[in-house]
């Protein structure tokens, strides 16, 4: 029979749980415990960033912060399951090791310095144009058209979205910086 929970456990146990092994020992916190994802602000369906199986993930967000990432039971590919890396996605996204500010190393310097994102974009654009101009090849030595530069090399892509790959290929081709490569060949 229900025993008023405000009584101290030692009294509660006399009423209905003499050995004190079950409800009598339960605290208010335990009674009102709930899963932290129940009151998440929103749930988003996503895909694991690690390997190419493409497991479905559910991302729970509260106060604009990812509080949990677990498998997406709707996915016909993974049926709600994840591997250790996929299960660690929340720890990846919230890893203390993650850097969130732009850093710059001056030529010859022995340490980083912080610069703004805008400044970095401008400096990189300058260098891109300068290097492109310096190493531009309009034609080969027999006059065949090249209109390219091999002075700039881009590496990366397999961890990027297809849309990102598309814009990178589009822009770098237009710029003649055709040497772009990614892990597909690694």
């Amino acid at each position, binding site marked *: 029979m229900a025993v008023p929970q405000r009584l101290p456990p030692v009294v509660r146990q006399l009423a209905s749980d003499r050995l004190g092994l079950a409800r009598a*020992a339960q605290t208010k916190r335990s009674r009102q415990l709930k899963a932290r994802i129940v009151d998440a602000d929103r749930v988003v369906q996503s895909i694991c960033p690690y390997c190419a199986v493409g497991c479905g993930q559910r991302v729970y967000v509260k106060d604009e912060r990812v509080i949990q990432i677990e498998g997406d039971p709707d996915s016909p590919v993974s049926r709600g399951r994840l591997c250790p890396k996929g299960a660690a996605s929340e720890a990846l996204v919230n890893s203390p090791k993650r850097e969130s500010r732009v850093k710059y190393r001056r030529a010859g310097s022995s340490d980083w310095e912080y610069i703004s994102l805008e400044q970095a974009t401008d400096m990189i654009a300058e260098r891109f144009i300068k290097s492109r101009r310096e190493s531009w090849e309009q034609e080969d030595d027999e006059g065949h058209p090249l209109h390219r530069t091999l002075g700039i090399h881009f590496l990366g892509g397999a961890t990027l979205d297809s849309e990102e790959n598309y814009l990178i290929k589009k822009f770098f081709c237009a710029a003649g910086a055709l040497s772009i490569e990614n892990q597909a060949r690694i």
Partner: protein
Amino acid sequence: MSVDDGRAATWEGNPVRSYHEQPVLKKPIWTWEIPTYFFTGGLGGASAGLAQLAELQGNGVLARRAWTTAAAAAAVSPTLLISDLGRPKRFLNMLRMFKVSSPMSVGSWILVAAGTCNATVTLNAWTGALPRLRQIAAPAGALLGLPMSTYTAALVANTAVPAWHEARRELPFVFASGAALSAGAAALITTPPAYAAPARRLALGAVVCEMVSSMMMEHRLGEHARPYKEGLAGKLGWARRLSMVAGAAMLHRRGESSHLAAAGAGSMLLAGALAKRWQVFRAGVQSATDPGNVIGPQRAAVERGEGHGAVRR
């Protein structure tokens, strides 16, 4: 060696299969305070008994000193227990419930009761207050002293540690004789020889009982007695034996005539009692962390058909 499935773990001399020779059980997390508490708890419990009986016999000098010893032990014991806790500030949670299935829960309530009795007696002895209450507190304290000196044996016996659990029938007697020995020895130190005859008898008797009960325990334990004889536990065992024998001899020869000799004997006997508690504690730790000690006997029991049916083919 991960290559094969574990060879180093042994039981009764032959190899036992284990998981990379990893222990099955966890090492008890208790630290130095606990074996020390076993000692002070026994000392306090038996001293209260001695004091009450001495009072009944009219030996006020011995009684007062024994009560003081009991009160001192009753004061030290809780501080030891609380400091050993992972979260000392939550020590009152010990009284959150009364669980008959937990010797530590029962023990905590006993300790509180005995503590208040001793405190009452001591308060009365120093200030004369609460005389009527003292009349009840004294015998109650003495009676509570009995379980206080032995529940600690029940506590360690009621664990999965083979060296403790298999000794569950003898350990209480070892702890009881240890407690008696401590009380006697303490009284030898605090009480002039003229009034300390009971203490001398108690100490000598307790030494004998302690030796006998320990031997009986180790004999009945058979292979499980190994942890008591090996490593640090073994060394502590020898230290106990030496100090007890020396203490008893000194007490027997000159205990009656010279208070100094009696005190010397008493302190050696006290040291012996403490060493015994440390030996028992240490043996438990060594027993828990040796996979052969846990798997061997269980596998043998299963092979003999005396297992409890954990596995079904």
